[in-house]
């Protein structure tokens, strides 16, 4: 095994775990109302800004120690992004529950444009950044060179795995999770059994937004910079991850994220980094051609 491969494997796992977190938002929303939430990538972008703002404000008030700073920012980002998710659903999707099939998709595109331009106008078009929070690196010697694993990357992988674990627990073992699963399986039947499905749909949007918030914070910590356009490309890639894993399947989204992240990083490292986005998009098209149900999804059955 050579060094570049291992290094890109680490980079890919870092990136992939974050893709997985964003993909959860796509896959849950798609599973429950059969709609691609185009604004989801921009929710992630908003959360990146919220992270930077949270860090700046908390540092201003004299909070310097890493655990408190990161915990405070995390709670702030997740809560506010969750409110974003709820508001977006309330304004742009809820009134369209009974509309034509195209209407929510176009409305979602509109919402995505609104979020991008709103952030651009209020925060300025320039690139923003956050300081490096976690210094330090672990080095392994491999062959002639060495591979480095920064603490930030380690932190990202651990936190996103914990986030996915918590979500899996919520979906599998709590009342909210049971309601979500019931609504996903059969919305009409669930509402006959006394589940407020409208509210469950709102919860799903909030959960997706919270996961995007976690992803936004982690990516911002890793790259350090972001701009108002950042949500677009990451959004499509996370969707690719969701499709790869099988859309509608929660473990599929996480697995798809990891696979896509690693594949993209290997392509960038071994072939050509200019075309890594092209590679991911082509992968999306290829998956849709050869295995549209993804790795862990069920084939789509049309019902009358």
């Amino acid at each position, binding site marked *: 095994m050579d060094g570049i491969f291992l290094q890109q494997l680490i980079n890919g796992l870092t990136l992939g775990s974050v893709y997985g977190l964003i993909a959860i938002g796509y896959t849950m929303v798609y599973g429950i109302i059969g709609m691609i939430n185009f604004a989801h990538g921009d929710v992630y972008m908003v959360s990146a800004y919220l992270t930077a703002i949270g860090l700046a404000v908390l540092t201003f008030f004299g909070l310097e120690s890493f655990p408190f700073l990161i915990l405070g920012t995390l709670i*702030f980002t997740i809560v506010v992004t969750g409110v974003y998710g709820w508001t977006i659903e309330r304004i742009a999707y809820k009134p369209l529950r009974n509309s034509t099939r195209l209407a929510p998709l176009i409305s979602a595109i509109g919402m995505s444009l609104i979020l991008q331009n709103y952030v651009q106008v209020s925060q300025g078009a320039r690139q923003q*950044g956050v300081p490096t929070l976690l210094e330090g690196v672990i080095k392994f010697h491999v062959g002639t060179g060495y591979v480095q694993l920064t603490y930030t990357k380690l932190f990202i992988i651990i936190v996103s795995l914990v986030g996915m674990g918590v979500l899996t627990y919520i979906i599998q073992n709590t009342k909210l999770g049971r309601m979500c699963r019931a609504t996903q399986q059969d919305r009409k039947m669930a509402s006959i059994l006394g589940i407020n499905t409208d509210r469950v749909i709102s919860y799903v949007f909030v959960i997706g937004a919270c996961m995007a918030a976690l992803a936004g914070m982690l990516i911002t910590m890793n790259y350090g910079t972001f701009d108002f356009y950042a949500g677009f490309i990451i959004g499509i890639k996370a969707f690719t991850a969701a499709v790869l894993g099988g859309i509608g399947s929660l473990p599929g989204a996480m697995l798809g994220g990891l696979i896509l992240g690693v594949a993209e990083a290997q392509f960038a490292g071994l072939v050509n980094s200019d075309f890594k986005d092209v590679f991911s998009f082509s992968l999306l*098209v290829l998956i*849709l051609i050869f295995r549209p149900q993804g790795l862990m999804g069920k084939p789509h059955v049309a019902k009358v």
Partner: protein
Amino acid sequence: MSASNSIDIKRCLIDTVLAGLISLIVFGPIVGIVLQGYSFDLHPQRLAILVGIVMAGRFCLSLFLQTAYGRKLAHSMQSKDSGVHVLPAGHKSALRFVIPVLILLAVCFPFFANKYLLSVVILGLIYVLLGLGLNIVVGLAGLLDLGFVGFYAIGAYGLGLGFEYLGLGFWAMIPLAMILAAFAGALLGFPVLRMHGDYLAIVTLGFGEIIRLVLNNWVSLTNGPNGIPIPGPTLFGLEFGRRAKEEGHIPIHEWLGVSYNPNAELIFTFVVLFIVVMAVLYVKHRLTHMPVGRAWEALREDEIACRAMGLNHVLVKLSAFMIGASIAGLAGVFFATKQGFIDPSSFTFFESALILAIIVLGGLGSTLGVVIAAFVLTVAPELLRSFAEYRVLMFGILMVLMMIWRPRGLVRISRNGYAIRKGVKP
């Protein structure tokens, strides 16, 4: 009924306060705190205005929805909009009066237009073309195509690269760009159209981005972000510049023996473009009467029923997708000719969104609506330069509001009705 007719002010106030709180949480950090490097500035005034607007808006909305008219409106929104209005058989459209007037205007226009007006109108017509193309895909066939700009880029770069490497000019590229774009559409559409419709949206979104990234990164072929020059149009080998650029060519004003007119090239582009738009309008009109056009609309309304009736849904959708793509390729050729120079920054996702906004505003499936909307959305920003910053925001709000208020667009779509011909058994 009488009890529910009274207006509940207390509920309005609760709604208003809740909306204010939510908007404070949503807008607070992003609008109220502006990042400055690793530090920040506070902008409480901006935040207060925005929250105030939201609260006032929510209060008015709450009040309005409790009036009799508001309740009726809310009810009509909840019910599924059946939408399409079917005209009686043999109905003659009002367009047969509008089109001669338009042609007359177009004939007179070049005589009094200046350079600026000409280029604005040409841009408007290019977007009419794009709107018509996308309208076949989204409005008639009900396929959400978010990478329309990719086909537009294929047309424009087809002209640029075709000239640079193969020496092809404006006229040769018009059919070639259409074929090229349609071929790309078939290549992309064929695998994806077999599946559930929403996948198409994201795949085309990815495709549009792939095209832009390739144009940007393949520097040895496309010259990357620096762009490529586009040759001026010619008419039977006559050029429109003051001096002929190629050996053996003569400028048109020398050939005609008139003095040089700097607008000649734009006027020529305008005339050809206008004829093309008219031709596309006619083709689209005929297509909606043909079996394939009616199959598009039927597939949009109920795919399962159509497949049960024996329609090949993939081929029908693919035909709409390819025709739409070829019109975008055509528009790309005109865009490149008008600009004289193109680079990948003209083909971002924003363009796709703008074209989508045009057809959403104009009405999905409506022709007249799209023509008007294309001019409104391309010419209005030229006039309102000071609002340029908020342009995308406006498009976004427009799309969301239109979908909530009138998912079928501003102009009501009507479909032709057909009667059984005399002497033919039903």
